[in-house]
């Protein structure tokens, strides 16, 4: 199922400048991501990783350059785009009166998933939420809420998965399981783009690493980028 390098690109980013207001937060970015491939975005705090991801999923306007998904400019207002792209960014917001399981069911049914309850049950188990999935978000720990947000990306179909530091607030065991699941997802044909500070997650999942900086944004092989991640 996994595509080899050179297959048609799902996400094409050209000379993209991102930032809040008029000032770019990092050097312009060029990136191509095909189905079945994974790119990790690394860089120090404040280097613009989150801003870049928010721009790539259409939540921020680019300052300059272009972003195309499946051959069309990224448009968050398009239902087709929202159906194809799943994103878990740094949000930690939940409906106060819905349980964790209800959040997942809403996501699955909202995306028209057949047998939504079975799919949700499976992800509840996979993310180690168990009976806690039936608690309100206010009764969950910070790590459990993070697992819930991540599980939402798995209860629905997507061609591109975008994650901002998915390892954040997870224990070591869950990090390893998440990395393995992301790698499996990539191998099944989903494109994965994620920002991370975790060398193990990057090493397990990423085919290429985009190092974000003020002077230049460069794509490296994971082995080349390992030293850079260790420095951060």
């Amino acid at each position, binding site marked *: 199922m996994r595509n080899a390098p050179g297959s048609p690109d799902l996400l094409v980013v050209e000379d993209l400048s991102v930032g809040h207001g008029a000032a770019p937060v990092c050097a312009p970015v060029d990136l191509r991501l095909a189905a079945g491939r994974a790119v990790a975005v690394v860089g120090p705090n404040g280097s613009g990783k989150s801003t870049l991801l928010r721009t790539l999923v259409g939540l921020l306007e680019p300052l300059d350059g272009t972003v195309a998904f499946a051959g069309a400019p990224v448009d968050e207002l398009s239902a087709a785009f929202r159906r194809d792209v799943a994103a878990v960014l740094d949000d930690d917001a939940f409906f106060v009166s819905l349980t964790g399981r209800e959040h997942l069911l*809403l996501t699955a049914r909202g995306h028209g998933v057949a047998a939504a309850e079975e799919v949700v049950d499976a992800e509840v188990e996979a993310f180690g939420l168990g009976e806690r999935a039936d608690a309100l978000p206010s009764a969950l720990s910070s790590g459990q809420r993070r697992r819930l947000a991540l599980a939402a990306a798995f209860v629905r179909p997507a061609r591109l998965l975008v994650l901002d530091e998915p390892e954040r607030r997870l224990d070591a065991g869950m990090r390893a399981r998440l990395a393995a699941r992301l790698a499996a997802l990539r191998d099944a044909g989903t494109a994965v783009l994620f920002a991370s500070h975790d060398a193990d997650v990057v090493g397990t999942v990423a085919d290429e690493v985009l190092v974000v900086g003020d002077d230049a944004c460069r794509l490296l092989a994971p082995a080349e980028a390992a030293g850079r991640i260790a420095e951060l």
Partner: protein
Amino acid sequence: MATEVAAPLDGAAVRRWTRSATAARARTTLGERLSEAWGGFVTAGIGVAVAGGSLASLRERIALAGAPVTGTTLPASLTSAALTLVALAGVVVVLARLGPVSATPAAAAWWLPLPADRRSLLRGELVRLTVAAGAVAVLLALPLVLGAAAAPTAASVLGGLGAAVALAVAAVGGTALLQTGRRGRGVAGVAGAVAGAAAVVPAVAGTLAAAGGGPVGVPVAGTLPGWAPAVAAVAAAALLVQADRGLGRLDAGRLLAGGATARDAGGSLLSLDTRQLGRALAGRDRPPRRSRRFSRVRRPWQAVVAADLAVLARGRWQLGQLAVAAAVPVVVARTEGLGALPPAVWAGCLVGWGLAATAAGRAAREAHGAPELDRLFALSAAAVVRSRAVVPLVATALVCTLSGLLLGVGTGLLGSWALLGLAAVPAWAAAALRGALRPDPDWSGPVVSTPMGVLPAGVGATLVQGVDVGVVGSLPLLAALGTGGPTPLLVAVQGVWALLLAVAVLVQLGRRRSPGS
């Protein structure tokens, strides 16, 4: 990852699903909800009755009033029109800051990424907003239409209420329409400028007319023509329909930004935290072109003053607020009828100068929210409070003196009026600091039943900290207004009284902020 796909939920179904899941867990009974609604209805009724009675009393006093405090040159209809414009612009500012259509952080995280059509997803929000704006318009307009006319008729009351509701709905529809067309960014700024101009222009015109010895000759109809509410209603409905059609064009980023503001503002309102409410609605500061170098700062107290000046200069609203603050007392004093009532002119001074104190105290409010910054300086708590008084002192001095000067035009006592305004400055500068540095309300106390609902005892006393010093400190001003104008004795009494209060406030604040006190 799930792959088998059936028909996804549409927007209305998503809203219904969320509502039913929430309702299944609701702990309040129908009886409790009805009881709460009745309590709110009674509270609103009391508020309307009190406000309507006060307006009727004001109207009767105006009819019996004697000579004006200073020369009145503005027709009452012109001031009413300006007041309506200020209120409408204020509503538009708030709506624009809130979106007006927005998504709570939860809705942004769990609704907006769904492929459901956004128009039906957001329609409920637009409907809620419209109903809320209409209800607030009725509550605000009812006392006006009942109390302002000598013999209100059913037709005049209904016409007035209809016009108010139509204006409020048009404001919602208009700002939502601009938002859907991605032209909403500058709306708050434009509306703020309109509100400022609506206050400042009559003040300037009234003063110039006083200097020239004649009234302002602007024809403004005193009553609404009968067809006006109907036209306004049609326009409001058209705006609302157009806005509804554009809901599908609202992007998630801006919906989330408006939702975050609405959440902060709503939370502040519920907890009666007016400082946080102001912060939530004010929006971001003007971005600086470059960082200041503070090259003239040599001592710690100068650093506090320089930082406060930078905060004041970068605020989006503060300088306009100061201009409006200087204008309000002048508009009241120059308006036919109102200007002949010393308590009304005094109230105008309190409102205007209170506004100046609020603007001038912004840096202190910011510092109250981040006290660790003050601890960076080698200054005692009392010295920090004294340093922090400098900017409010300068800002209120400019406003109060300018107001006094403008009030004095045409009276032959220009200098005395200006000095009277200047003499009140210490009280208002102290009010700015006391309001900014007041403690948070204590919600743990025993509750008492009030016309505003059940509140813990002492919350009201905490909330009025700041305004109280300004009001008490301006009592000699009331005496001056009631006895025909400023005399050297009254100016001196005003100055000494305001100074004493200010010293007491600074000493108290210095002790309160000292470690261990």
